[in-house]
């Protein structure tokens, strides 16, 4: 009994000590956060008041009217123009990645794909910008293409926009048996078959309706991307196959001159009334009339064949987050937006009809692949338009993967 009497209390005390020891042994040692203190996105400091110039990166090639408008803005504030080739995306990207990025980017729609995937541009829909308040400039225009890929930010906004149109010689078209009235002609050509017939008829009269065999392919795909927001490949529709079939038959019918009207041969052909129909941005009509002054009165413009509406040249702006004069950049852009464009453009009329576009950083690569494949197939008499579309799809997707999958996976994640 005596042993029990002594054992129990000792065991209890031992257990108590053990418990305290356990707590001591299991105490964790916390340390400070080893990650360096997070610094916000750094902006270069603004230059001194006297030297302050708005640094604007702008494409070298712009419609003359637009260039004049830009030049005119220098009267309001000093501007340093950083001119780059509009097709040189790297120039833009390098500038953005550099230590002193421009305050404002002016660029064409072809750069949208790259810029939409970046997270270095200001959200123009947020304060203090409020870009959506300028929707009225291009009524009905879908802004999806100007939003970031996750759809959360409005990273670009159109300053100027032109529509892609059909230029035609009214006399020659009439001679081919088609109305010379723009509206009537546009309606007739909405049917791809009519466009092929017109081409065949014009050819029979010794005239072409395309400078190059890819013209029709160009206006058909103008303003269109390769994917929609869900990552679905949009250039494999039945409708496209029908349209491309018409393109193929037009090619087979020899409706393309394969001469550029800017060339000497092409210009001669133009003068010799060998071109019944051409395609381009609406502002080019004036240039065309200058090139062919003898028939200037005959050159008219209507909407694109195949019932197609597409943007032509586009001037967009975006404000880099790391730009030192974001507010001035915004002021510049809004001033441009508020400045009345000369004349009433088709772009403003047809903005709501422009096809939905969802450019991605992979579009440039996709364009090369797809166009090469489809062109090869379309202009090979042994292939059909269906084969062209299918092969274009397969090759493009195969080539874009795995980046394509990662991109849209990331887009889905970012969109949540």
């Amino acid at each position, binding site marked *: *009994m*005596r042993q*029990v*009497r*002594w054992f*129990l*209390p*000792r065991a*209890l*005390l031992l*257990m*108590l000590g053990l*418990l*305290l020891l*356990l*707590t*001591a042994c*299991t*105490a*964790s*040692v*916390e*340390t*400070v*956060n*080893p*990650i*360096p*203190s*997070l*610094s*916000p*996105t*750094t902006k270069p400091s603004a230059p001194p008041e006297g030297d302050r110039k708005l640094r604007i990166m702008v494409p070298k090639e712009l419609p003359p009217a637009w260039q004049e408008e830009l030049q005119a803005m220098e009267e309001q504030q000093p501007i340093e123009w950083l001119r780059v080739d509009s097709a040189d995306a790297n120039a833009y*990207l*390098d500038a*953005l*990645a550099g230590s002193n990025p421009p305050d404002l980017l002016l660029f064409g729609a072809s750069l949208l794909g790259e810029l*939409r*995937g*970046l*997270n*270095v541009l200001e959200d123009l829909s947020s304060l203090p910008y409020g870009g959506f308040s300028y929707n009225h400039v291009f009524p009905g225009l879908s802004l999806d293409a100007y939003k*970031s*890929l*996750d759809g959360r930010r409005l990273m670009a906004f159109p300053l100027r926009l032109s529509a892609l149109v059909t230029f035609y010689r009214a006399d020659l078209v009439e001679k081919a048996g088609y109305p010379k009235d723009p509206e009537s002609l546009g309606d007739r050509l909405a049917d791809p078959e009519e466009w092929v017939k017109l081409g065949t008829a014009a050819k029979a009269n010794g005239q072409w309706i395309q400078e190059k065999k890819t013209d029709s392919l160009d206006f058909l795909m103008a303003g269109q991307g390769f994917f929609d927001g869900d990552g679905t490949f949009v250039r494999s529709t039945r409708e496209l196959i029908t349209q491309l079939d018409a393109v193929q038959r037009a090619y087979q019918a020899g409706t393309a001159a394969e001469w550029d009207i800017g060339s000497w041969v092409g210009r001669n052909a133009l003068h010799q009334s060998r071109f019944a129909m051409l395609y381009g941005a609406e502002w080019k009509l004036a240039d065309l009339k200058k090139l062919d002054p003898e028939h200037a009165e005959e050159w008219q413009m209507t909407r694109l064949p195949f019932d197609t509406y597409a943007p032509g040249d586009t001037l967009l702006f975006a404000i880099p987050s790391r730009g030192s004069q974001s507010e001035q950049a915004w002021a510049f852009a809004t001033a441009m937006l508020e400045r009345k464009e000369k004349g009433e453009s088709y772009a403003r009329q047809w903005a709501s009809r422009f096809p939905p576009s969802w450019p991605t*950083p*992979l579009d440039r690569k996709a364009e090369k692949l797809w166009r090469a494949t489809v062109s090869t197939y379309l202009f090979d008499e042994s292939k059909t338009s269906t084969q062209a579309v299918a092969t274009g799809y397969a090759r493009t997707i195969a080539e874009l993967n*795995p*980046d394509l999958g*990662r*991109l849209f*996976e*990331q*887009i889905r*994640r*970012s969109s949540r």
Partner: protein
Amino acid sequence: MNSLTFRRTRKLRSAALYVLLGAAALYGYTHPVSLMFGLEFSFAALFLFLTGRMYGLSWSLLQVLVLHAAGYFLYGPSIGLFLHAAECTFVILLCGRSHPRDFFWGDLLFWLALGLPFLTVSLWGTGFTEVLDYPLPYFVPLMGGLMNALVTELLVTYLTLSRGRIRLRRIPHGKIRFSRLLKQITLACIFASSFFYLLNNSRTLERSILDQVRKEAGTSIRMMETTMANWSKEDVRGIKLRSLLSYAQLGQMVRDTTLSSDYEWALLTQSGECLLSNPEGGPEWLRSGRWRKWNLPLYEWKPDRTFQRVGESDWKRNGFIYSAEGQSYTLYVKIPLVKFSPMARGMYMASMKSFLIVVLMLSLFAYLVHNFFLKTIGQLAASTENIPLRLKSRTKIEWPQSRIEEVYSLIGNFRSVTEKLSDMLQDSWQMAHYDALTGLPNRRHFTEHLRSRLKKGGGSDAHLAVLFIDLDRFKQINDTLGHGIGDDLLCQVAERLDNELGEEAFIARLGGDEFVVVMECHGERLPSDAADRLLEKLNHPFLVDGHELFVSASIGISLTTIREEWELDDLLKKADSAMYDAKGSGGNAYSFYALDQAKSISEQMKLEFELRKALDQGQMSLAYQPIYHSGSGQIVSVEALLRWNHPELGSIPPSKFIPVAESSGLIKTLGEWVIREACKQARVWASTSTAPFRVAVNLSPSQFRQGSVYRLVKQVLEETGLPPELLELEITEAVVVNHVGKVMEELKSLRQLGVQVWIDDFGTGYSSLGMLKTLPVDGFKIDQSFVRGIPEDSDNLSIVRTVLALAESGEWRVIAEGVETRTESEALTRLGCMEQQGFLFSQPLTPDQIAERYVLACAVSKEEEL
């Protein structure tokens, strides 16, 4: 140490202990035993419970308040903190100093009534819905609380906790209640095993997870750094521009180099700018949380504490973070701890299963021990409690059954011992309460019976009667025929008493020849009737060992209606006194107690007292009755007769004081005095008488028992100078019957000395003739009862004739006692009995009268002759 200093020291100790307990509680709270996945054991409650038991409600709640306020300021508010405070408060209120209940059950009550419902609501509030799949968030706080309560209970049970000090408790009487010990051991085993099992598993799991994390991180870091080193200019630019594609590529790289697609990561510049991260906007661990370094570049990360936490209930956000360097960028990747939750869950569920198995096994073990062992032992303990009392009250003992061999054997041993004890007690009780000789209840039994009857009470008209029965002349029977005969006679007397009154009265033997009857008297049932019936039965002769014995009895009756215990002794004394009254009237009678008999009792006591003074004060004297020769008319001897002449009470007859002397032990002194005095007187007479005569002295049987009569007589003869031939010693038949061998030697020696030995009261002692032949005696003195009425009484005449014929054949002399008439004297003379004694010849005379009549006269006549 004076009392003031003592009180101060005690107060200081009390305060210090209070602070220490509070500090220990705070330490326990700030240093919980961490299990994996944010589960924690805290021992804070243990110390708060102890304070609750030692310091009362106010001080305890103050400590609870202070501790949890400290917890609030240290870690911020949380559900866990609130729950802990509620648990401590509840248990202290329920089981604190003012209500010292069992802490374990108090805490269990808290969890069942409040804790678990509150915990359920809280966990559901945090989005925890996996109760069945993952019960640990319930299990750990519950087990932690119960474990604290159990340890507290063990401490308060086995330690003496006082404000002044804590020391080991001396267990009262050195006994531990095994059932409680079993419960505590079982619970302690369950909790300790599960706790350490859980702790050990947590450590193992933690090590396992760390190993996996290290391996994965090491591999990932190498692969990532290789990939990052190979980034092109466009890749770096894409990162700088936070390109979504770069983001996707970087995410893919992380996925490719790790084992999961869900890891959080962040790519930081050297300046700390987060370029890309998953999730976008930067994981929370970039900005907050608690970090614990394992080894570079591996860290364990926990989120900041939140209000909704219960312990570390938001452990799902925990993880391990490592980093990879490349091209001025650092990529941090977090391996979420939740990744290992299936493994942990599996392990903990296995632990839970093991725990449940342990609980089941221990419970089963405890049940078996309790049911098969403890319960049986408890029943055995209950059955064997106060066994002597139970046996005494003859309560039936229910023995438990057991299938356990050792317990079965133990029960068997107990049963055997108890049965033997029962037998012994029965025997002892029998011996203590029944007379071994007659089988009747003894004095003790009688006393208890009478006491119980007096206590029990009875009808208002019922008398309780006590009949005290004493056999007449039993002493002579015993003395003459021996104790064997006497004992047989007593047995037969008892049997007759029992047969006659056994069914209506309680009969006991008090000792010797004294019997007592206790009976209820009501209506026609009278004690006098019972006494008559008894006397009538006893008057029939008894046949004992060939002897036909006649016995009568004296019965004293006392009655009472007072049913009180104190009546007991009085009732018996009264019956005893009444018995003496009956005996005084000649025996073979009964007598009711009268009030004046009380006086007699007190007189006897006084008599004894006076007797002790009598010899010293010379109150005793001897008278001498002459014995004549009927033929010559000459005196042949004188018989010394003791006389007591009290100065106040007057002359007291021997029949009164001899029994007192016998019973008080004074008979020895008295006997010696008589011999010495008689011899002195005889020497005087002999020195003056020309015809000296013998002097006869009666000896009591007790004188033979108490010493050597021969030595005494020889000494007295030497002292007095009396010739032995002049001394006669008279003994009764009882002397020779009871002490045959020893008495024979004594008598022979006395006769050789010259002293004559006579048998007194011959014929009343039942001595056998065969024995008489061998007796070294000189003659017989025929008892006066045989002399009375001869020669008319033919029976007595024939007896005397027979005795004389016997004496003649043995050459013995015969003296007839109690001769009162001349007719008797002549008849005796004719029969040949010449020596006679009685009132016919002379009353007992004083020594002077003897001297005057027989010594001086003899001397004168001789002188005249001369």
